[in-house]
């Protein structure tokens, strides 16, 4: 016979384990002077092209490297390696997002040396990555002009969890009649005060402003 049921009060953050690892990563990066930037978006929004452009332009003056998560294939790592920066692929198998432990494991078997910036490209997915802290200083959410202006309203949680919004492929804006003010209003609705950059990795438009922000304000904030 079993005893009477009773209620036991506990308070346990479900993602405690992930958050602990993320905190230790953040501490480690902080001590090494490395600023960590993660990228999330839906598949095909242009994370890899944007990151390749960013790595290529930063590589001559900063120590940069990238970790890139994908369900399968090493195609993104191969593309990013063209920037000459060290790149490591994390193949997640069936997992739809990166977790802090996967970043920790990747860094245990891969040492890119001292870095100014480490970029972590998440699996293309606007839902699952939002819950997991990866120890980053800055989380970018990317959105391409071909995806529709209401994307932030459809995926408010990921936009709310991110620090900066990057509108990509603006070279296609006219062709798809992209309404930039509408997307801005939607971003501000789900994440008031969010910084926003509009860029084209193809033409280079807007990339300077992004890099200035990254190497100035972001790096300084991460160092403090």
């Amino acid at each position, binding site marked *: 016979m079993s005893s009477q049921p009773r209620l036991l009060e*506990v308070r346990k953050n*479900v993602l405690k384990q992930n958050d602990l690892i993320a905190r230790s990563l953040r501490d480690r990066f902080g001590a090494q002077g490395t600023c960590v930037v993660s990228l999330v978006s839906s598949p095909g929004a242009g994370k890899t092209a944007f990151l390749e452009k960013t790595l290529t332009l930063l590589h001559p003056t900063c120590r940069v490297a990238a970790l890139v998560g994908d369900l399968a294939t090493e195609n993104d790592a191969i593309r990013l390696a063209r920037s000459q920066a060290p790149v490591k692929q994390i193949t997640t198998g*069936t997992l*739809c997002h990166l977790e802090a432990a996967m970043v920790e494991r990747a860094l245990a078997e891969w040492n890119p040396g001292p870095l100014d910036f480490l970029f972590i490209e998440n699996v293309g997915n606007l839902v699952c990555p939002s*819950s997991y802290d990866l120890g980053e200083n800055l989380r970018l959410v990317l959105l391409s002009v071909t995806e529709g202006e209401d994307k932030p*309203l459809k995926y408010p949680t990921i936009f709310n969890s991110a620090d900066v919004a990057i509108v990509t492929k603006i070279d296609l804006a006219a062709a798809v009649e992209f309404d930039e003010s509408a997307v801005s209003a939607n971003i501000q609705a789900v994440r008031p005060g969010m910084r926003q950059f509009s860029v084209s990795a193809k033409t280079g438009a807007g990339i300077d402003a992004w890099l200035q922000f990254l190497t100035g304000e972001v790096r300084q904030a991460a160092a403090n």
Partner: protein
Amino acid sequence: MDRPRSPRLGPAMHELSIAMSIVDLALDEARERRVTIDAVYLDLGPLSGVVADALRFSWEIACQDTALQGSRLLIREIPVEIHCSTCNANRTLDSVQWLCCPVCGTPALEVIHGKELAIIALEVRDEQPAAAPRSA
């Protein structure tokens, strides 16, 4: 009690791995306190990025072959609450698509509730102690 995360359990739903984390935490608690768990009470906010229905759907699979098999998951959904700096008051929001004060419209920079993803209580029964050996 530890079991490998089976890749056969399917892709593209992080609620399953969240459910497995909840099970693992509850199992730790059960071991530590020597109790059997009948139900897990969870607080869940819409900004946690976790969907209640998907979590309920994953629960049974996550509990399979553990001491939590047959247990219930009871989810309390916590609404988003913001602090409005203009009104100097806390406000509850109906939607996560418009993070503004519902009274004055000021954009909300401070979210107070809505990110919860926490076990708050367990419904438990004490484990029956094994029959004590009779003293001679």
